[in-house]
C-alpha cells in the first residue's frame, strides 16, 4: 500500500454471520483494521459493536467509535425464514438506515452484498450478465427486498461523498454455512441421495465463500479508482443518440481487450505449448532461442500470444454494448466500480445435481458404509411439480411443514449461471478456491462442527 493512499478502516455489518465472518478474517489476515457490527457477539478477536441496523443512532455511534471509512454490509435474514415483514425491515429499511448513517458520519465507501437471486424468477438464467433487469414479478419476498435494497445502494452512489457498489454472489457455500449444508445433510441422513428431479442438463453456479469475501475486498479497494472515461453526463452536450457518444478511450479499450483465460482452477491449469513458448523437454541439441522459448512458456502473462476476442453485439463488453449502457445510465461509466453491480461466482458452472453428489461423496469419507450405492431415481420435471403440488396440499391440510415444494422443483430444473466477465475485467476478480477444494474444506469444517455439537448433547 502506498503512503499516498490512506488505509481504510473497515466495519463489517453482519460480521458474525456466515459471509461476514470470512470477510472479517480476510481483512485481518492482510493487516487491516476491522470491526464487526451485529446483533450478538460471537467472536472475541475483533472489536464488536452490538446494535440494530434499523436504528440509525446505534449505527452512527458504532461508526464514530470505530473510525470506520468503509462499510461492508452483509447483514440479511436467512432466506428460508419466510417472513416478508422481517425481510423488508432488515433488508430495505436496514439498508436505508445504513446509507443515511454513512452519509451522516462521512463514510466514504459502502460495499453491499446483494444476491444473484434478485434476477431469478423461475425461468432459466442462462449465461446472463448484469444488464438483465430485475423481474417485474419477483420470485419471493426475500429476493424482492434484496433487489430493493440494491437499488437504494446504487442510487446512493456519489451522494454525500459516499461511493457504493453491490455484489451479487450466486449459491454461496463453504465453512460456516448452515443453510445449504443442512439441507444436503438431511437428504444424506435420510438415505434419499439417489433421487433426482429433471434430466440434469441444467447448469448452476456455486461460489465458495472465500471467493465471495475476496470479491468484497477487491470491490472496497477499487471503489475509488477513477473511471477509465468520464461519464457521458459530464459532457457539454447531452448525447441523444448512439453516434453522439465519444469513441472508447485507450483505458477503456485496455480493460475490455486484455486476454482473460478460461477459469481452470478445478479442472487443472496447464498452458498449451507452442513453437514459440514451450518447455524444452528432452533434447539432444537445444533449439535456437532455447532460453527465450522456455522463458516465454513460464511467463504468466500471455501477452506474447494474444488471443482473438470475438464479440457479438449482444456482448455487454462489446463496443456496441458499452455505448448502449452509457446511454442507459449516463451518470456512471460502465467500466467503473462505483455505482455498479457485479455477479460473483466460481466461474465453474456445472450441472445441477453434480454439486450435491460431490457433497455426498465427500460425506462418505467421514461416514464410510452409510450409503448403499443406488442408481439415480429420476423424476421428470412435470411429475416432480405434480408431486410437489400434492405435497403442498397435504401440508396445508395437515398443518405440517412442507419440504418438497414447487419452488424446489423449479429451482432444481432451472439453469442459473452467470457471465462474470465484468467482475473479472473491472474488479480483477478471479476465484481463488475451486469448487472441488471448496467442497473438501466445507465438509471438513462441517464434520468437526457436527461432532462438536453431538458431543455437547451427551
Amino acid at each position, binding site marked *: 500500500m502506498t503512503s499516498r493512499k490512506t488505509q481504510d478502516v473497515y466495519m463489517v455489518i453482519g460480521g458474525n454471520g456466515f459471509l461476514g465472518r470470512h470477510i472479517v478474517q480476510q481483512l485481518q489476515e492482510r493487516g487491516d483494521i476491522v470491526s464487526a457490527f451485529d446483533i450478538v457477539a460471537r467472536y472475541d478477536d475483533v472489536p464488536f459493536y452490538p446494535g440494530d441496523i434499523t436504528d440509525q443512532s446505534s449505527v452512527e455511534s458504532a461508526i464514530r467509535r470505530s473510525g470506520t471509512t468503509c462499510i461492508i454490509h452483509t447483514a440479511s435474514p436467512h432466506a428460508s425464514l419466510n417472513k416478508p415483514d422481517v425481510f423488508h425491515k432488515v433488508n430495505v429499511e436496514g439498508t436505508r438506515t445504513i446509507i443515511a448513517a454513512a452519509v451522516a458520519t462521512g463514510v466514504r465507501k459502502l460495499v453491499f452484498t446483494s444476491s444473484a437471486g434478485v*434476477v431469478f424468477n423461475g*425461468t*432459466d*438464467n*442462462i*449465461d*446472463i450478465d448484469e444488464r*438483465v*433487469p430485475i423481474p417485474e414479478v419477483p420470485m419471493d419476498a426475500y429476493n424482492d427486498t434484496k433487489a430493493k435494497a440494491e437499488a437504494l445502494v446504487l442510487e446512493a452512489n456519489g451522494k454525500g461523498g459516499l461511493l457504493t457498489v453491490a455484489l451479487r454472489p450466486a449459491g454461496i457455500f463453504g465453512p460456516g454455512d448452515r443453510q445449504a449444508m443442512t439441507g444436503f445433510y438431511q437428504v444424506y441422513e435420510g438415505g434419499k441421495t439417489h433421487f433426482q428431479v429433471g434430466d*440434469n*442438463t441444467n*447448469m448452476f453456479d456455486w461460489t465458495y465463500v472465500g471467493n465471495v469475501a475476496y470479491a468484497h475486498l477487491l470491490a472496497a479497494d477499487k471503489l475509488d479508482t477513477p473511471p477509465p472515461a468520464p461519464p457521458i453526463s459530464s459532457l457539454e452536450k447531452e448525447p*441523444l*443518440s*448512439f*453516434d453522439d457518444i465519444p469513441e472508447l478511450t485507450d483505458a477503456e479499450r485496455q480493460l475490455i481487450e486484455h486476454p482473460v483465460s*478460461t477459469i481452470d482452477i*478445478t*479442472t*487443472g491449469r*496447464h498452458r*498449451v*505449448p*507452442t*513453437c*514459440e*513458448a*514451450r*518447455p524444452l*523437454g*528432452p*533434447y*539432444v*541439441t537445444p533449439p535456437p532461442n532455447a532460453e527465450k522459448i522456455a522463458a516465454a512458456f513460464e511467463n504468466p502473462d*500471455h501477452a506474447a*500470444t494474444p*488471443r*482473438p476476442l*470475438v464479440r*457479438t*453485439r*449482444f*456482448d455487454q463488453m462489446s463496443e456496441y454494448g458499452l455505448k448502449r449502457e452509457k*446511454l*442507459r445510465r449516463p451518470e456512471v461509466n460502465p467500466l467503473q466500480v462505483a455505482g455498479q453491480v457485479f455477479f460473483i461466482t466460481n466461474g*465453474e*458452472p*456445472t*450441472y445441477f445435481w*453434480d*454439486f450435491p*453428489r*460431490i457433497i*455426498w*461423496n465427500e460425506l462418505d469419507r467421514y461416514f464410510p458404509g452409510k450409503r448403499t*450405492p443406488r442408481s439415480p431415481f429420476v423424476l421428470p420435471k412435470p411429475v416432480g411439480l405434480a408431486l410437489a403440488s400434492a405435497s403442498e396440499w397435504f401440508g396445508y391440510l395437515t398443518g405440517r411443514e412442507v419440504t418438497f415444494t414447487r419452488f424446489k422443483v423449479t429451482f432444481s430444473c432451472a439453469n442459473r*449461471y452467470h457471465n462474470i466477465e465484468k467482475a473479472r475485467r473491472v474488479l480483477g476478480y478471479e476465484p481463488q478456491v475451486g*469448487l*472441488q477444494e471448496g*467442497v473438501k474444506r466445507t465438509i471438513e469444517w462441517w464434520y468437526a462442527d457436527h461432532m462438536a455439537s453431538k458431543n455437547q448433547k451427551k
Partner: protein
Amino acid sequence: MAITTWLALLLTHPLEFRTLLQFYLYHEQKRDIKALKEHPTSGWDRASMRRCWEFLDMTSRSFSAVIKELDGDLARTIALFYLVLRGLDTVEDDMTIPDAVKQPILRSFHVHTVTPGWKFDGCGPNEKDRQLLVEYDTVVEEVNLLLPHYKNVIIDITLKMETGMADYAHKAATTGTIYLDTVAEYDLYCHYVAGLVGEGLSRIFAASGKEVASLGSQLELSNSMGLLLQKTNIIRDFREDADEKRFFWPKEIWGAYGFNEMSEMHKTDPDTMQRASWAQSGMIVDALRHAVDSLDYLRLLKNQSVFNFCAIPATMAIATLELCFMNKEMFQRNIKIRKADAAKLIMRSTNPREVGLIFRDYARRIHAKAVPSDPNFLKIGIACGKIEQWCEHSYPSFIQILPESGRQELDPNDPRTRVVQGEQNLEAALARKRKLNGITNGKAPAQLELTQTSMSELAMYVGAAFALVMALAGGIVYAVMKYSD
C-alpha cells in the same frame, strides 16, 4: 460397400441405413481434381502428382476426400504436407529401425524432403505406409514445385517436428523409460506430433489468402486443435498401442489410481476395471481442456472448405471421446464411432454454431455417463460446462431462427430478451427526445434528419437481429463411403 453389407445394415440398424443412404444420395462432391480445368492447381496432369494423390488415398482413408475439397492450390499443398508428415511419422513409428539408424534420418528429414531422388527402403516389411518412403522421391519432386511461401512452411514445420520426435525417440532408446511422466511432457509430445501440424496448416491457410493473415500467429489455438485430435487418438488407441509396447498416457494421470504399469489396466477384475475407468476419465478431462480453444479457432475461419477441413476432425474427436468415456471395451480392443454417426457429423459440421451444438450434445452425453464416485466427477461436469458456456456466449439461444421463414425471433421467456427490449425502448425514447429538441429550437426538422432517424432505427433493428453464421452446407462426398470398405 458390398450389397450384402448394405442389406445387413438395413436389417440390423435401419436408422443408420437411412442416414448412410441419404449421405450417398445427397452429398455431392464439389471439386473434381481430375478435371482438366483443375489441372493448374491440382497438378493432375503430372504423373508425379497423380501418384501423390494415390498415396493420399492409400494413407488417409478418412481424410483424403476432405483434403480434395479445399479451394485452389490449397488441396495440393495440404495433400503434400500430409504426405511429408506421414513419411516422417512412418519412420518414427517403425520399431524395427534401430535408434542409430533412425536418428539421422529423422533429424535430416526436412533436408531429404527437398533432395531430388531421395528415398528410403529401410522400413520393416509390416510397416503399413512403407511404400510411401520407397517412392518418396515422387513426393520430393512435387514439394519442390510448390510456391515458396507454402514450401517454407512445410519445411519449417517438418524440421521442428522431426527434432521433437527424434528427441523423444532418443530418450526412449537411451534411458529405457517407456512412459511419459507428466501432463506437461504429454502436452509437449502432442505439440511435436500434432500441435505443430495445427500451426503449419494455419500458416498455410493464411499464406494462401483464403484466411486472414493473423490466423498463422494464433499459436495457442492452432496447437489446441492439434492436441485435441492427438489426445483423442491416444486415448482411443490405448489397446492398439499397448499391443505394440507403445505408451503415451502420462503417468501423472494413471499412476494416481494405483497402477505401476499401463499394461495392468487390461485386467478384467472389477477393482481393476473401476480404477482403469478413473484413469480413462482423467485422460478425457485432460483432452476436454482443449475443446473451447478448438471452438474459438473454428470461429475464426471464413473459407467454407477450410472450415469443413478443420471442423470435421474436431467433431469426430468429441464423438470419439464420448465413445471412450466409461467404456471398458476400450481397454480390450480398438473402438470406433459408427459410420452413420460419422456421416451425420460430416453433414452437420458446416458452421461454428452447429459445431458448438455438436460439442455440447456430446458433452451432455459424456456427463450423463459420469459416475459420482469417480474422482474426476466434478471435473467432468465443469469441463462440459465450459462447452455449454461457449455455446451460449457465442451464439445465445434466446435468438431463435424460425425454420419455416428463416426469420429471427427473440424468446419472450428469456431474461436476455428483456435486455434487447430495454435497448429498443431506450432508443425510441431518445428518438422522441431528439424530435422534441428539434421543435424546441424553433426549426422544423430537416428531411435529412428524418432520414437519419429512420436509418438509426433500421440500424438498431439490424443490430438487435444479430447476424448468425448461416453458411450453407458444403458438399462432401465419399468420405463415409471410404469408411465402408
